[in-house]
């Protein structure tokens, strides 16, 4: 008896409840990543090297160390400096920071793809740098990179099981607890795997759809928007 359907129905409600925590962590983390990423991208492109070089160093550092250690770092090291965070908050900040570093590279690609002439035209029109950025550059830079950002949303979603390492009661942690209570790991862990597979496939299909829509509206700007 490898697979027990009764047990599956028994554990399903608690797994579904836990999957809400997973989804919540994903969205909060990604929101943070989007904001931090934009900030890091803008700082990295700053004209002053005293800002751009340390930011570049920080981004590279975050990108080349494991996210699990970063989660541990925020959860265990910050309290030493008097910042005690609940596990969920620490986890969301760590994920947001890690993927923010990745997203900043995506933003940078988008920002660098905006033709120089747009900046020059804005200067000629006497727009302030802030207005230029907000109304001219960002609206042109972001839409082409939305699919790339979407890929990082899926990647972040798949990293949320790491939060189980600092005892956030998300899907993986719940599955492990259920497994150890009933001495049966086959069903809970397989179900978690299936959940992630289904969600990622759905998300990938959605991203492809968004990409197609964006490509169409980029090809005939103004028309059909």
């Amino acid at each position, binding site marked *: 008896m*490898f697979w027990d359907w009764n047990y599956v129905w028994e554990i399903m409600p608690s797994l579904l409840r836990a999957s809400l925590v997973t989804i919540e962590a994903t969205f909060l983390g990604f929101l943070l990543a989007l904001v931090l990423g934009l900030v890091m991208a803008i700082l990295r492109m700053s004209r002053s*090297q*005293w800002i751009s*070089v*340390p930011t*570049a*160093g920080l981004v590279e*550092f975050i990108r*080349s*160390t*494991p*996210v*699990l*250690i*970063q989660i*541990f*770092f925020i959860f*265990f*090291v910050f*309290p*030493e400096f008097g910042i005690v965070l609940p596990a969920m908050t620490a986890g969301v900040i760590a994920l947001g920071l890690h993927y923010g570093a990745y997203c900043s590279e995506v933003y940078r690609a988008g920002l660098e793809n905006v033709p120089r002439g747009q900046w020059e035209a804005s200067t000629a029109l006497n727009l302030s740098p802030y207005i230029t950025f907000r109304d001219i550059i960002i609206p042109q830079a972001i839409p082409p990179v939305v699919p790339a950002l979407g890929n990082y949303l899926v990647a972040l979603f*798949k*990293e*949320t*099981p*790491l939060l*189980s*390492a600092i005892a956030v009661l998300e899907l*993986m942690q719940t*599955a*492990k607890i259920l*497994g150890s209570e009933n001495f049966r*790991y*086959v069903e809970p*862990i*397989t179900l*978690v*795997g299936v959940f*992630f*597979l289904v969600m*990622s*496939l759905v998300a*990938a299909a959605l991203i492809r759809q968004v990409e197609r829509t964006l490509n169409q509206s980029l090809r005939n700007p103004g028309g059909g928007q």
Partner: protein
Amino acid sequence: MQLRPLAICAIVFFTAGLAVASFANFREFIPGLLQGAWITVQITVGGCILAVVAALLAAVAKMYGPLPLRWLAVAYIEVFRGTSALVQLFWLFFVLPHFGINLEPMSVAIAALGLNVGAYGAEVVRGAISAVPRGQWEASVALNMPRILALRRIILPQAFVAMIPPWGNLFIELLKATALVSLITISDLAFKAQQMNQTTFRTVEIFSIVLVMYLAISIVITVGMRTLETVAARGMARGR
């Protein structure tokens, strides 16, 4: 990147590091953490080898295999790319014993991470193979080469050069994913860090050293891959 601010930042960080190190005694943690780092390196190397093999097989099967093999390759790629590395690790660790397959934790770690990164690598390999100009295939047919021989002698060596930079990224991903194996009882760098943290409570020092160690390993990978890239590209230029 400009050299002067970089150098000055490096000097500032180095002096700050020295200042911190001089009144926090780092030395006692280094031997234990180095043991963990050695396990991490072993898993990384094993995982990388498995990943390259799995990626090559999956990509070739997906592109040229007979239909059932093609489906198998697609299923492998989608399943391993679509689920979390941690879930895969736990699945191999907790679920396989129920089917009577008992693996050492080390083997589980290498298998899970290698197969996970291999699935991403398969797409890299596929992209690199399809980037080889069609004329190369046609020339091989004209020279009466069997497909396997053409793939091995003509196509793959050219695709290899295009593959190196994305593989460098994947190897670093794999290195970072090795931190997960601490959760299946392997005493790698992340595990040692937690263990020492629980006994000594010197959290700041331990986790800072660990971050720097991971950074050092990933710099080694980056530099190694860049060297490989120049060496391989040099061969290409001569071949043309």
